[in-house]
């Protein structure tokens, strides 16, 4: 029972990271039909933000690791958002609805960004100092829950709430949903799809940046930190249904749990294999994902 609850907790915290990574992916894929393989490097960019704040400008923050970490959350959002926006403006905006082309191009970008990180920060992994108030742990029914992981779960819950409120109540959010649901109809209704794409990309990339800041609480970071999450995040997007928030949430936690339990019962690599088999089996029954709707164009 106790190990079950322990794995449940690990699955929950893994699922919440996957969720925040996958949300950005599903928005950009659902809306623009582009596959951004460099999304993982936006996580990486976010992860290096608290590192830079702590090591390079640590003096300005009085050497306070906790303050630097908190400041990194909005700054990581902005840095990754801006990086994503540059990618969107320079490359992806020219490749709307060409998923395979974007897959290849962004794979190249992803490798370049990883190399850039190694040039800037060195080839070996670095540590971000966790705030002291996150170093404790809770024990409930014998399950050990580190504060850092609880913090991540709470952070993701807040972010998902904010994103969902943004989508349903803000004019910019409504425009995003409209473009996602029918791009041509949005254009002929006077919505600038280019501008909406930019908003979407900034938001999705920014979320990856925050995820990057969050994963520094779990372990050391390096140029590969994002690559470790990206495949699972793509699986979440596929299982959840493109551009769907509800499906993405269910799929993220489902895959997080599956990951945690299968790795516990077997080994890490066998666990991954089980995960893939489960996803493939699932797609036999629901090829469009958990939740799907038709996105229709007007010109076919």
């Amino acid at each position: 029972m106790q190990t079950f609850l322990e794995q449940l907790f690990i699955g929950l915290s893994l699922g919440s990271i996957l969720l925040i990574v996958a949300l950005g992916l599903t928005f950009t894929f659902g809306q623009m039909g582009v596959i951004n393989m460099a999304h993982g490097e936006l996580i990486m960019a976010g992860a290096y933000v608290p590192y830079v704040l702590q090591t390079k400008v640590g003096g300005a923050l009085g050497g306070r690791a906790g303050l630097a970490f908190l400041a990194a959350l909005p700054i990581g959002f902005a840095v990754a958002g801006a990086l994503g926006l540059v990618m969107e403006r320079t490359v992806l905006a020219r490749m709307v609805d060409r998923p395979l082309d974007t897959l290849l191009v962004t794979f190249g970008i992803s490798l370049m960004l990883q190399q850039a990180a190694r040039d800037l920060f060195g080839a070996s992994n670095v540590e971000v100092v966790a705030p002291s108030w996150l170093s404790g742990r809770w024990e409930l029914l014998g399950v050990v829950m580190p504060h850092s992981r609880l913090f991540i779960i709470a952070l993701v819950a807040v972010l998902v709430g904010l994103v969902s409120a943004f989508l349903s109540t803000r004019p910019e959010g409504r425009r995003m949903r409209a473009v996602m649901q029918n791009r041509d109809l949005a254009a002929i209704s006077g919505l600038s799809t280019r501008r909406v794409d930019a908003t979407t990309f900034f938001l999705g990339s920014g979320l990856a940046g925050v995820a990057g800041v969050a994963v520094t609480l779990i372990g050391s970071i390096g140029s590969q930190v994002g690559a470790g999450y990206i495949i699972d995040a793509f699986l979440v997007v596929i299982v959840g249904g493109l551009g769907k928030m509800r499906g993405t949430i269910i799929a993220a936690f489902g895959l997080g749990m599956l990951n945690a339990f299968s790795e516990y019962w077997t080994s890490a690599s066998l666990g991954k294999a089980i995960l893939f088999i489960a996803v493939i089996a699932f797609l036999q029954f629901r090829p469009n994902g958990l939740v799907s709707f038709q996105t229709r164009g007007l010109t076919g």
Partner: protein
Amino acid sequence: MSGLVVDDVRVAYGRTEVLFGVSLEVPDGSLVCVMGRNGVGKTTLLNTIAGLLKPQSGSVSFDGSSLAGVGAHQRARLGLGYVPQGHAVFPQLTTRENLQVVMERQGRRARAASLRQQDLDEVLDLFPALTTLMNRPAGLLSGGQAKQLAIARALVTGPRLLVLDEPTEGIQPSIIHEIEDTIAKLHAAIGMTILLVEQYVEFALRLADRYAVLDAGRVVSTGLTSEADPSAFAELMAV
């Protein structure tokens, strides 16, 4: 000339040519109807006018200026309101949101909120059925309701030219009647310029001042509806 001018437009999907040099004029204040059998390229023509498709040659101009290089959303802002064929609504947005998202688009924020409410009220007056469906996702509306919403969506932007693609297709007679009344009202009362694509010949001839018949990617017949012989269309429209 003010109004819409389509001049010798050629359009292809990849290598498949669909329009072989179509010319059409929709003068300010007129109501022009384009007819033609299934697959002759009516929707292709309208999508080209709206800026969703690029012609290989030829031009589209609106109020005297060429629309070459002008994107679909900019054409909408120039006053081109387009109601595409079929279920042309945002399915996961409610009826209200479908209208809201179009009214609050970028660049229109400066307009006073009260003025917008007035625009909305005016449009809803034309489609009273929508007022009870404001909170329903548009994907759940019936074909007739969705069509009314699509027309309302085009109207809330205050277009100077309204383009309608087969508004009666698959719609029950009573709603066709309402739509006919609405189009007639818009044309007569505020002199709105309208380009209507329709296969329902009697409906089209009752409404339009002028007609053009499209066949195999070309305009094969044009004229005044008052001088048209409805039976002559039977052959041109037969599949």
